[in-house]
């Protein structure tokens, strides 16, 4: 068993760190304050190949492994969680399902421009009445001649208005089981921005990741071609769940990055901040808190990297992804809360990054499956 990174992964980390420090960190406060999507940063990331890291070269990607992608999201999120989730949603939730379930034509048409960053991707499953309980969904797709007609709405969609390509999950049939209970059958679709009948609703005002473009998507007799169906008809739910397994590894990496970023700032600040004639880092209370946080962060990193490795080598990695996301998200929340406490009054002031990090951390316990959902996945596998 080897816990070390090889030279190419070490060099990739150096690259992501340098990019994050130079291009992303200086804008993080502004992105949060103004809630403006960092479009210029995304262009720069595209130029450096960050928008298609785990995508094979034959489809315009970088041909790297999931671990390299995870390290990218981690390093970006250390300085700006908004930038981290833009890459994560684009890569894990839009490119990955097309690569896994798409036809050769769909891969050629969509994956290449997505992987080069020429286009941005999003994923739409959640609806106002359907979060954890997907059966509450209302959005329907009906085949009409050579076109599917979509009606309904999706909410809380990351990269909402700025994306060009959307994976949309919709009901394509309703069947009854033996007891006469109705069951909705879903299918996955690739919808392009500008499709007739596809529009955007309200922009969500969020607690954290405020530069991320989170919108409601509205489909009113939205007509898309018949071949926009992704994977087999009726298999939308397993496609969505498998996609979310990958997505959870990305969010786990985002959470890990937030926790690491907060810890780094705490180490620097507690060495500088003087109370009672010495730095607070010299107080045992601080030292023990730093030690606990560092231990927890490293444990989170191991779970996240293990999940990334599982995605590379295993067909099914739901439990590894769930454990990584559960632990990393709760670590991010616990560490940022503790770091704000160590900063005292300054930690509560927006001028200091840790205030933003604590707000950013919360969403990692909620989106792409709440911590409760992760516990359901893990315990479900234990009690099978």
């Amino acid at each position, binding site marked *: 068993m080897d816990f070390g990174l090889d030279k190419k992964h070490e060099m990739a980390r150096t690259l992501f760190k340098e990019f994050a420090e130079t291009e992303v960190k200086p804008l993080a406060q502004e992105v949060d304050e103004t809630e403006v999507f960092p479009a210029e940063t995304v262009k720069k990331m595209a130029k450096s190949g960050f928008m298609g890291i785990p995508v094979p070269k034959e489809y315009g990607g970088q*041909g790297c492994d999931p671990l390299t992608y995870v390290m990218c999201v981690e390093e970006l999120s250390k300085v700006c969680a908004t930038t981290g989730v833009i890459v994560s949603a684009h890569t894990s939730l839009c490119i990955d399902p097309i690569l896994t379930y798409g036809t050769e034509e769909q891969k050629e048409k969509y994956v290449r421009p997505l992987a080069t960053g020429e286009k941005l991707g999003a994923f739409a499953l959640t609806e106002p009445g359907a979060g954890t309980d997907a059966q509450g969904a209302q959005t329907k797709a009906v085949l009409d001649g050579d076109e599917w007609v979509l009606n309904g709405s999706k909410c809380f969609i990351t990269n909402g208005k700025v994306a060009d390509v959307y994976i949309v999950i919709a009901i394509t049939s309703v069947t009854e089981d033996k007891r006469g209970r109705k069951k909705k059958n879903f299918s996955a679709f690739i919808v392009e921005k500008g499709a007739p009948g596809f529009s955007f609703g309200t922009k969500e005002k969020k607690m954290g990741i405020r530069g991320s473009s989170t919108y409601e998507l509205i489909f009113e007799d939205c007509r898309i071609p018949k071949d926009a169906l992704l994977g087999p008809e009726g298999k939308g739910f397993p496609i969505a769940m498998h996609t979310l397994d990958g997505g959870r590894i990305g969010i786990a990496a985002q959470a890990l990055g937030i926790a690491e970023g907060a810890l780094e700032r705490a180490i620097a600040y507690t060495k500088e901040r003087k109370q009672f004639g010495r730095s607070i880092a010299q107080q045992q209370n601080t030292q023990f808190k730093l030690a606990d946080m560092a231990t927890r962060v490293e444990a989170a990193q191991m779970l996240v990297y293990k999940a990334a490795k599982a995605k590379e080598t295993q067909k099914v990695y739901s439990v590894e992804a769930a454990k990584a996301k559960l632990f990393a998200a709760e670590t991010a929340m616990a560490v940022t809360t503790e770091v704000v406490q160590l900063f005292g009054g300054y930690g509560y002031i927006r001028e200091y990054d840790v205030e933003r990090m604590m707000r950013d951390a919360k969403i990692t316990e909620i989106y792409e499956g709440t911590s409760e959902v992760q516990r359901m996945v893990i315990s479900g596998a234990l009690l099978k």
Partner: protein
Amino acid sequence: MKIVVCIKQVPDTKGGVKFNPDGTLDRAAMLAIMNPDDKAGLEAALRIKDETGAEVTVLTMGLPKADDVLREALAMGADNAILVTDRVLGGADTWATSTTIAGALRNLDYDLIITGRQAIDGDTAQVGPQIAEHLGIPVISYAEDIKVEGDSVIVKRQYEDRYHMLKAKMPCLITALSELNTPRYMTPGGIFDAYEKEVTVWGRADLKDVDDSDLGLKGSPTKIAKASDKVRKGAGEKVTLDASESVSYIMDKLKEKHVI
């Protein structure tokens, strides 16, 4: 078109310089990076490659761990990498270094050689021009801008209070300033490819037309008597006075310090 870029792995001096007790640099205690002027030179070469499809080879002389900067250069887009390393080359000053690099370059076809102006660990700015001298080709130093036109290069050379526009026929050598450009980032895929590629390793036996007496510590006429970190200047004093008052103030200060 074939371009060779000479690069050097240097200690990162951003966090200060650390010395061994004997006064030599404690390289192990400092992060190793690609020398900034060399990186700008590499970027200039890669831009020429983007435009013309030129082949870019990077060459370094150093310890085996200098392989890291060659991989970085490959990950940025260089095509080939050569590491010149041999125990007998250790302890080289600028003369022995330029002799060694020229000996390596004699094995290669090139139209253009680009080096950095100077390395941040030595700050001599001698190696580039010395290589050109050894090879008998023109050199244009301190390049702020480089353009390729037919079989010539047109270079904007930085000067103290002006700049010069110079044209030289290739083959020639240019020394690059870090102000020349902003080097591109590596790409993740480029990094993966860089570790798949082979770095050519040359030793003393591969150097062409050089004498042993010109190599390594023995071949180095420079002897370092003492080395120290930069002495930090004080913050100075700022005064806001009108012109005539300023003159008297400065004159008084100069007299006070016995300068005049």
